[in-house]
């Protein structure tokens, strides 16, 4: 019953947070200097004052802000995010289109950086202060100080320009529509962005796992295991992995929002048509419905990610279960 309550509280909290994100973004948008009518009509077309008034009246721009929020939020709940002014299509359609590519990128990054980072962290912790440890650690620290987009540019210089192995941009070859692209080609274009993002996210997991591993190896129970004559394999298997996996998983799920941020940069460097490059287009083009739509969807993703990570640690870790 306690567990049920805990899950319910977290779930309610998640819903409240999503609603708050809607409120905050809406407030920002309403108070912004961007004129929605001019955005809608686009430059070049002149609108008379009467026409302006008519549009404003039709859209309900003259209503109070709270009324407008109620209407907007109501249509959000019905799945209507409005129409994108740069793509001239429903926001939801645009997002659906782009989300698949983005998810492909992020899931791969997620899995790869999780596994590689964890293994590297274990190795570093096990062979602490060796040359291997010091080298990997230095590389990790350098990567934490490196902007994602610069790594992307270096990747382009090395693999695309100098070696000619990968294309410079566009996840779809010119002259082919989106539907005709083979799966192979999509993957081929995603490789460099995935490598870039993975490189950026490995250090986080690896450095954390390293310090956890060291902590576990210095613990009394490992000392006792050594005294019992357990060999190294069984110590790593029974003690180190069991005690370091949970923090690593928690960190991985907690970095959901950072991976999203990183993918915005990577997608732009590699002109990969995902949510990240779309939100930049929307921002530069003043496309408010699309901007809000992507932000809210992103926030929902992140909150669900955090919720899942809470649940996971609840089921994996008996200590957390005791605490509630």
């Amino acid at each position, binding site marked *: 019953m306690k567990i049920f309550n805990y899950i319910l509280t977290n779930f309610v*909290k998640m819903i*409240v*947070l999503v609603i*708050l*994100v809607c409120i*905050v*973004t809406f407030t*920002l*948008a309403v*108070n*912004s*200097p*961007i004129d929605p009518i001019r955005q809608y009509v686009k430059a070049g077309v002149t609108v008379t004052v009467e026409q302006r008034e008519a549009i404003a009246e039709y859209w309900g721009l003259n209503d109070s802000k709270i009324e407008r929020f109620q209407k907007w939020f109501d249509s959000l709940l019905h799945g209507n995010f409005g129409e994108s002014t740069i793509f001239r299509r429903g926001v939801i359609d645009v997002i659906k289109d782009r989300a698949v590519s983005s998810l492909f990128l992020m899931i791969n990054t997620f899995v790869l950086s999780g596994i590689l980072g964890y293994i590297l962290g274990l190795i570093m912790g096990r062979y602490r202060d060796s040359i291997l440890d010091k080298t990997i650690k230095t590389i990790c*620290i*350098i990567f934490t*100080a*490196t*902007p*994602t*987009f*610069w790594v992307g*540019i*270096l990747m*382009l*210089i090395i693999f*695309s*320009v*100098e070696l000619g192995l990968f294309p*410079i941009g566009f996840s779809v070859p010119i002259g082919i529509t989106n539907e005709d692209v083979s799966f192979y080609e999509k993957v081929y274009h995603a490789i460099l962005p995935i490598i870039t993002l993975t490189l950026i996210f490995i250090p986080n997991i690896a450095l954390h796992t390293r310090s956890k591993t060291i902590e576990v190896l210095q613990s009394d129970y490992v000392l006792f295991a050594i005294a019992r004559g357990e060999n190294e394999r069984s110590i790593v298997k029974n003690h180190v992995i069991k005690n370091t996996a949970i923090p690593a998983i928690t960190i991985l799920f907690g970095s959901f*929002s*950072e991976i*999203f*941020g990183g993918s*915005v*940069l990577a997608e*732009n*460097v590699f002109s990969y048509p995902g949510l990240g490059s779309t*939100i*930049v287009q929307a*921002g*530069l083009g*003043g496309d408010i419905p699309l*901007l809000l739509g*992507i*932000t809210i969807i*992103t*926030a929902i993703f*992140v*909150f669900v990610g*955090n919720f899942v990570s809470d649940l996971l640690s609840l089921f994996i870790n008996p200590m957390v279960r005791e605490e509630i």
Partner: protein
Amino acid sequence: MVFGTLISDEMMAANFKGKNQFPSLSHPFGTDWLGRDMFFRTVKGLRNSIVIGTIASLVSSVIAIIVGGLAGTMPKWVDDFVRIAIDLVMGIPHLIFIILISVFVGKGAKGIVIGVALTHWVSLARVIRNEVLQVRNEQYVLISRRFGKNNWYIFKNHMVPIVLPQYIIGLVLMFPHAILHEASVTFLGFGLSPETAAIGIILSESMKYLISGMWHLAVFPGLSLVILVLLINKLGENLTLILNPYLTRE
């Protein structure tokens, strides 16, 4: 930074005779397609980054200390409120939040400073909240309260010596994040205007010339940014060593 301020526009002026030069002794980082010296542009850009980073992280740290302090001393509902605000800021990816703000506030340095300041206070606020909560219930604070010392005395003699070092460390560690976000947002086209020298601008311009093999336009400015960030991180680590009495003794 001082050096960066001294660099006048003349040094970065276009010189079409020597355009697209690779690095040499007279131009350590080479020149770009307008013949501007990349070394001076980079230093100037780093200087701009440092200025913006400093302002943004100072503002952000002030937010952090107010929020953290309130959460640690006020009744519980304030604490709950702060926690929800923290979850909210953590929920929207920082980069997207900064983009949102810079779109709605207007592009340029102002947008970046506000965006970075509003997103980076979270971790420091948490630290300060925990410190304040902990100190408030320490034995010596309780005793000092029993001795009839007022709130101001406790604040001055018990809170400040514990919280201040944490604040300084947090501020220094926030700085690289602020700079990296500034560069990223500028790179995406939301930050500083294209005329200003900024690492983000230099790198996004260099993207257009990658295919023609102008690798030096991208490599050196980026590398200098990385080195700057590493140096500040090192500074933060050393400060931690100096200011944290437990670590100093080791």
